[in-house]
């Protein structure tokens, strides 16, 4: 009985681990999007101020 | 006025097909060839053949329909006829439905012709042949509608679109091959017919919208 419960817990841990990691990966993707946007905006404003000069 | 236009479009579709018969014959021969491969390649086991028959015929039908559908809008878009239809006041889905109707009739004739050959190759008895034929007749409009939608994206993108829309073809294939030699045949046929009617209506409007969008892009 004890072994059965431990075996089950392996699957529980694996599924929560997979799901947690993919959710973290998605949050990381959101963070990467925010960085990409910031960089794009910075580049745009740098170009703008260059052309205005 | 619109009534006359649709009738003339139907005649024009028939003309296009009969002027270039090879465009229809090649997918048809592919269909037969693909089906013929399996009894030749698989180990000779009658139960195995009967088990795979439904799936093989339906897969082959899908690919053959896709190959035929690739040429749906080719001539018309090249000679500018398609653009005339797109800006005319008659709704474009009637054009799409004309095309599908004529191609569907031609393909039904082809399938009817193939049925004895398939029955001999797979050694099917009358009931099994009947179930296969009935399932193909009921499900082919749905398959034709999906292939028609795929071809509306243009000749360059059609394979990509087939891959993307393949998940939607899967239910048709599942129902179709499930209907083969099944005891609940009328249930499968009813579902296939419902799916066909629904898909023909919805996908003709969707294809018309996609044709219009491709016009905006070019």
């Amino acid at each position, binding site marked *: 009985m004890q072994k059965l419960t431990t075996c089950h817990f392996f699957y529980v841990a694996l599924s929560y681990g997979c799901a947690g990691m993919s959710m973290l990966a998605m949050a990381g993707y959101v963070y990467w999007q925010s960085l990409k946007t910031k960089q794009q905006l910075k580049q745009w404003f740098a170009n703008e101020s260059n052309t205005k000069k | 006025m619109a009534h006359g236009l649709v009738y003339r479009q139907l005649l024009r579709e028939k003309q296009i097909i009969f002027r270039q018969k090879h465009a229809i014959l090649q997918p048809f021969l592919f269909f037969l060839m693909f089906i013929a491969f399996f009894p030749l390649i698989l180990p000779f086991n009658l139960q195995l053949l009967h088990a795979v028959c439904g799936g093989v015929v339906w897969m082959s039908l899908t690919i053959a329909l896709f190959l035929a559908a690739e040429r749906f809008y080719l001539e018309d878009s090249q000679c500018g006829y398609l653009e005339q239809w797109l800006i005319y006041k008659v709704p474009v889905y009637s054009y799409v439905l004309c095309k599908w109707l004529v191609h569907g009739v031609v393909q039904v004739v082809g399938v009817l012709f193939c049925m004895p050959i398939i029955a001999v190759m797979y050694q099917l008895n009358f009931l099994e042949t009947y179930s296969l034929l009935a399932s193909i007749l009921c499900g082919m409009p749905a398959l034709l509608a999906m292939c028609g939608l795929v071809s509306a994206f243009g000749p360059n993108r059609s394979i990509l679109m087939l891959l993307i829309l393949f*998940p939607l073809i899967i239910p048709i294939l599942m129902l179709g091959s499930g209907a083969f030699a099944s005891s609940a045949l009328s249930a499968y046929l009813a579902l296939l017919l419902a799916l066909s009617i629904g898909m023909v209506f919805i996908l003709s409007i969707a294809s018309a919208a996609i044709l219009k969008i491709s016009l905006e892009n070019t």
Partner: protein
Amino acid sequence: MKLFYALGNPQTFYKLADQLTQKLGFMALVILLTGWGWGLLFAPPDYQQGDAVRIMYLHVPAAMLSLSIYAFMALAAFVVLVWRIKVAGSLMRASAQVGALLTFIALITGSLWGKPTWGTWWVWDARLTSELILLMIYVGLLALAQQLGNNASADKIIAIICWVGVIDLPIIHFSVKWWNTLHQGSTLTVFAKPKIHSSMLYPLLISLLGLALFCAWLILSLSKYAILQKEYQKDWVAKLCKN
């Protein structure tokens, strides 16, 4: 109605999304951790399945949300087709990404739950197959979005394909009623009393709420950045980033 058109304005939408995501992020984290903590540590094990039932607090919300997000995407697609609002297009693309993630989680956790309980990783049961088809539809929509680029006609095409695929939603929902194969029937319905004991029901509902808030946070953040990336040349963006 005025709110609807106000939301269509990228600037108003961005402001609203910005405020919401700040609050939603923390709320989602707190509620999700509460729900899963309760489910993992304090909820009772099932008398038949043992501890493996704790996967339920992950699998059921993920599956329910995968369907709801598709419904939300279909709604955004409808707005794109009828009103041609670009904000709805960004929302649609963002929800395609989040929905794909959740369907993937639902399938993986379902398969991991199936192994100890029924002894098999996968079976061609109606609900599992139609959920797999849903994942393929999501991935197809993402491939389309990647290939067609970020313009208005691409939005329209994605919206059309989204609606062509919406037929899968009732198939998944009613599949346990129509076909009596492996997957168990529904325990939670809107009108009837739930068939699950309250000590398991509460962590389930809390996890569902937490995961829903997390998805809302993801969708709003992604559409927020997508709008900024599209509208970067406008004046309100310049005023926004005085940094």
